[in-house]
Structure formats: C-alpha cells, structure tokens
C-alpha cells in the first residue's frame, strides 16, 4: 500500500533490498569475527559479543520485513497488536528451554561421571544383610 507516490514506493523497495543485503553481509562478518576468522582468536567473549549483535541484527531484519515489506505499518493497531503481542510469549519459551537444555547437559555429565567412578570396596547385599541380622540377634 504505502502513502507516497508510485515512484516513491518503487524507490523504497530497492532501498529496503539494499538495507537487508548490507545487514546480511554485516551479520556474516560478525559471525566470522566471533569464530576467530577475522584477526582476533575465538574466545567466549568474541562468541557472545558477536552473538548479541547477530540477534539484534536479525530482529531488525524481522522488523523491516514485517513493517516495510508486509506493510504492517499500514494496518490498524488492533491487527498489529493481535499478531505481534502473542509472539512475546516466545520470550519465556526461549529462556525456559535454554535453561532446560543446560540442565539436561548437566545431568548427562553427572551420570557419565557416576558411571566412570571406581567402586573401592565390594560388599554384596547378602553380606550386609546377614551381618545386620547377626548383630541384632546378638543384641
């Protein structure tokens, strides 16, 4: 739709295309930077630094596609909110499932450690059981 003239709208499309293409290139550069391809070696800092910006860039691209290409800006606020607000539910889903995944990983590591532990003294169930009954009988 758009409110400008046909020529303006036409220009806006190519402007949008250039913006999205440049952001994509910057994203790839950030990703490679985070993985240690562009000079600085990979570290937890570069990974998280790049990751933060990658997420921000991706959400900007999403905003641009929804508002400019899908013309969400021209819809009334009721439609806009009823489509966009439910997506906020996903924020908690993302946090919760990343925590859940981390916990699965910790549990898996714990089980592996327990399985590889060496048992020092071997006492069978019967020995313990009969020893205890003897002690009780003696008492």
């Amino acid at each position, binding site marked *: *739709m758009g409110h400008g003239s046909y020529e303006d709208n036409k220009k806006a499309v190519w402007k949008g295309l250039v913006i999205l293409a440049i952001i994509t290139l910057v*994203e*790839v550069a950030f*990703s*490679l930077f985070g993985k240690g391809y562009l000079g600085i070696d990979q570290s937890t800092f570069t990974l998280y630094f790049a990751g933060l910006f990658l997420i921000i860039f991706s959400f900007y691209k999403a905003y641009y596609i929804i508002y400019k*290409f899908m013309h969400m800006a021209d819809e009334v606020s009721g439609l806009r909110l009823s489509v966009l607000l439910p997506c906020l539910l996903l924020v908690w889903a993302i946090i919760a499932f990343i925590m859940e995944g981390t916990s699965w990983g910790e549990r898996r590591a714990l089980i592996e450690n327990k399985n590889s532990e060496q048992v020092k003294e071997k006492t069978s169930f019967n020995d313990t059981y009969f020893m205890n009954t003897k002690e009780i009988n003696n008492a």
Partner: protein
Amino acid sequence: MATETLQKSTTQQDAWEGGDKKPFEASYGKIMMWYFLLSDAFTFAGFLIAYAALRFSVPSWPVPDFVFSTTPFGGHHLPLIFVTFMSFVLIISSATMVRAVQEGHRENKNGVVFWMFLTIIGGAAFLGCQAWEWNNLINVEHMTLHTNPFGTHEEAGTYMEGDGVDIKEGDSFTAGEPYLIHNVDGHYHQLKYKTVDGEVKQQAFGPKTFGALFFFITGFHGFHVLSGVVFLIIIAVNSFSGLYEKRKNGYEMVEKIGLYWHFVDLVWVFVFLAFYLL
C-alpha cells in the same frame, strides 16, 4: 467501487470482505492470512527452540562455518559463502514480490505477471541451492538423520593417521577444532589420535541430534518455499489470464501470497541465525 459495496446489503456476498464494518479495516482473507502466519511462526519457533535446548544440552556442537564451507563448482574452505548467497536469493525474491504487489495496486496486469515471474525464479533458485546443499551433506559428507560425522575435539593432540584429504599423520590440533569423519565405501573412518597426556583415542561422532534437527528444520522451511512457489505460479497464471481484473477486490490474491512469501523470507532470517551464524 465504494458505491458498489454500499448498494449491496450485508448479505453472504459481503461476508468474505468482512461485511460493511470490516474488523481491523482489512478483508477477511488478509486477516486470516496474518493469523495463519502467526500460527506458522509458533510452529517454526517450536522447532528452533527445540534446536536451542538440544544444542545447550551437549558439551560441543558442530561448528557451522566448518560444516557449511563447501560451494558448488568445487569450492572448499569458504565458510558461509554459499548460504549467504542463498539468503540473498530469498531477499531479492522478497523485493520483487513487493514490486508485484505494487503493480497489483495500479491494476497493471503485465507488471504483476513480470515481477511474480521473477519471484518464482528466485524461489526456484533457492530450492535448487538447498537441493545442492542437502545432496552434498547426504551423499558427499554422509550425514544422516542419526549419524553426525561432524565432531569437535575436546582436547589437544596429534593425529596418528591421515585421512588423505585434509589431515596428515602427525598433524596436531587444539581443543575446539572441528573435524569430519570421512566415509569411504560405506564405512566411517574414525582417525586415531594421541592426546597430550599420551592417551590413544579415536575421533568421536558429533552430537546425534544435529542431522535430524538440520534436515527437519531446513526441510520444513524448504517445504514452505516449495508450496509458496506452487501458489505463486497459480496466482501468476490467474493474473495473466485476467481473472483478477474482473474481481471486485482486484489483485488482493497477489497481496495475500505476498504476505506468505515475505513470511518465508522472515523465517529464513531466524533459520540462518540459528543454524549458520550462531
């Protein structure tokens, strides 16, 4: 057009336009397309969140710029180049789709058909790229739904044998370095190596879920692209035949398939983020 609508009472004919008083001032079809896209967004979000949970549950994950570093025509060690090209193809096809919708508003039949034709070519090109990528992963690198030959070293060491491609005997590596277990004649060859502590080990397979997640999520997206291309073709043919010129709401079908097509591009932004960038 406005007088036409006023003349008709709010009978069944108008139900598809949302009646006299349109909810959200949009037609029934467009509102429903938005809600369909919302529900589809939740489906994709569910997949990508499952990916995140499983990725966080293992100590190491295949390094994307190592896994996705081959291009057609024999390109090797070119991290992310091919997928960046694929993203461009999709973004460009999204822009040509906006142009088609604009021409639809002007009731310019030839313009609509021309720009939709370019969009269809973009969609088909993206599917072609994805087919190449899948073929490379399945038939060349031998990744399956449950076997993931892309591993990552968890400690430093030295190889005791070579694979005849990238790794030579005596090559040393550091912790965090990725590797591909080559498959020759139907057998995976897990190379032996000596860790810095002198222990002899062999390359372990990568996290099992990687293949299933990759093929399901990119496959589900690819299926959306494929059905998008099919609908684009149908609507382009309808436009060409002059069907929409006769309709009261003109080229609204082009607008609706446009919404769907941009959504496919939107999902790719996040698939690209999760699988290739992070």
